[in-house]
């Protein structure tokens, strides 16, 4: 590889020009290299994070900068039934969807880890739901959940005759909640499956051979080889998954917008509704900030509960 690039250089050091020397001065070069990324992240990530926490303690509305009102926003939220409903549904949505995604995703990963023909094509197809814009596939789900023209109802009622009337997927509280969770699981399976498949492929086959010689059952091989060795990667994927499911916005906003009667609001959609169209930026920020403790807890839990094994094996913590 060096031979292709090396001959193009002039072997003499280009000296004399101050600019060249400036860029070779390490502190300056470091500064220049870090500036764009640090600038962007500090301005548009760190600062807004602080600003959001500050806004949560003010009564800012759109077009009017607010006054410091202490914990009033939070006091109001504590007595707000809708807020507690959103907290409940966020937790419920996250736990059920995560369970579903990891159960099915792990199963799919194990299936794909076998010798299957057209494996690379299969893998490419499976990742498709994750690539396509969430809102657009959410609209497709909205159409699938249509009360009058749902294809699921059609198949179950008119074709198979399992049920006798069309489902009203999004019309009442619990069906709407479960329908959203199903759509979220559908979208999450590919990410989990492909990540875990990558983890599975790093497990050495000789371990399985040794276990086979010892007369292990398939369940024992999964329980004592696959699962423990998969845990570190599982912990990371789960942390990501929990964070982004808990703060999910697009799917709910696209399919139900929090309805029917506000029963499917997640904390993110409620924050949006109160903050942007409702104009109460302070209150919206307070709802958004209330997500942070949940996120920190979920991250710590999934990371420490699952990734501990890595330290026990004496590996470095990179």
């Amino acid at each position: 590889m060096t031979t292709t690039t090396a001959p193009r250089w002039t072997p003499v050091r280009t000296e004399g020009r101050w600019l060249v020397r400036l860029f070779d001065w390490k502190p300056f070069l470091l500064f220049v290299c870090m500036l764009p990324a640090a600038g962007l992240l500090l301005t548009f990530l760190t600062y807004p994070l602080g600003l959001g926490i500050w806004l949560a303690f003010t009564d800012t509305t759109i077009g009017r900068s607010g006054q410091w009102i202490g914990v009033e926003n939070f006091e109001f939220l504590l007595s707000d039934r809708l807020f507690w409903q959103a907290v409940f549904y966020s937790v419920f949505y996250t736990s059920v969807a995560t369970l579903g995604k990891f159960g099915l995703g792990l199963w799919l990963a194990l299936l794909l880890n076998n010798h299957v023909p057209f494996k690379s094509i299969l893998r490419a197809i499976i990742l498709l739901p994750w690539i396509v814009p969430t809102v657009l596939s959410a609209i497709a789900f909205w159409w699938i959940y249509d009360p009058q023209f749902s294809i699921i109802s059609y198949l179950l009622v008119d074709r198979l005759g399992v049920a006798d009337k069309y489902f009203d997927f999004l019309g009442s509280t619990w069906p709407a909640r479960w329908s959203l969770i199903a759509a979220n699981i559908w979208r999450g399976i590919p990410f989990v499956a492909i990540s875990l498949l990558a983890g599975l492929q790093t497990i050495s086959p000789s371990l399985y051979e040794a276990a086979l010689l010892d007369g292990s059952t398939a369940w024992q091989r999964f329980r004592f080889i696959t699962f423990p060795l998969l845990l570190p990667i599982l912990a990371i994927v789960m942390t990501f998954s929990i964070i982004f499911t808990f703060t999910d916005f697009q799917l709910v906003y696209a399919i139900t917008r929090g309805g029917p009667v506000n029963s499917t609001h997640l904390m993110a959609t409620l924050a949006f509704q109160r903050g942007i169209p409702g104009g109460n930026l302070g209150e919206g920020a307070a709802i958004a900030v209330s997500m942070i403790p949940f996120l920190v807890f979920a991250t710590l839990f999934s990371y420490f509960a699952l990734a501990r094994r890595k330290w026990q094996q004496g590996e470095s913590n990179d």
Partner: protein
Amino acid sequence: MTEAIKRAGKRAAEGGATVVPEAMAWDSRARRAVLLYLPLACFVFILLFPFYWMAITAFKPNAELYDYKTYNPLLIAKPTLDHVRKLLFDTAYLRWLLTTMTVAVSATILSLTASALAAYAIQRLRFKGSQYVGLAIYLGYLVPPSILFIPLATMVYRLGLFDTPFALILVYPTFLVPFCTWLLIGYFKSIPYELEECALIDGATRLQILRRITLPLALPGLISAGIFSFTLSWNEFIYALAFIQSSEKKTVPVAILTELISGDVYQWGALMAGSLMGSLPVAILYSFFVDYYVSSLTGAVKE
């Protein structure tokens, strides 16, 4: 396209049953079919069905769309381009596509430049605490947009960027830079340090090394980070929804949801056509670079 993929999936499922499985004594053919190919076929069917349904709705005339009694809803009797034509000529769809493309490409270029420089500084120039800077950037990826959009909306408003695509170009790097930097650090790590030492001895400056050695060797990483950033910016929703108000400046995902749904009657044909066409650019990009996607996805997780 969905049809072809489906066929391929089916072929994979059927063809597989005749292939002699690896010689494992207890793995009889029937057992393998039930435990492996049947569930796999179900997974593929469920994961692809929404796309099939999307595609078939987009090309169905309205008469068939709302009449399940006389027409089989899973097939099209008379395919039509009416919905696509309506979308292209009666709405600002092409405009939305153009805006989305501009925003996605600009945000990608901006984040890729920033991340490549940052990753080089962290991994190759190495300074005191560079590890912690890398970790801090990585933690930035864990901050979800749902927490940031309200303060960002007030900032964007005060900066006078409200309702301009420029706001999106500046804000998207907040979730692109952490990801790209982390990915590129991994790639830079895999390039032998000796190559750079040789160049230094030959009299190259640091910038020459970056431009002539490190970046060309990290090209697969740059492609991965680039297409990934493009996809993420194309799919972004909450910032675009909060910062853009006028109809003609909206991005495709936002515009379809807010502009195409008017009143109580949903134009499902046009909606599905819009969703299908809005998904096509990323789907095409994806079909060309599948391996890069997979490697960046798994690479980001494994690091």
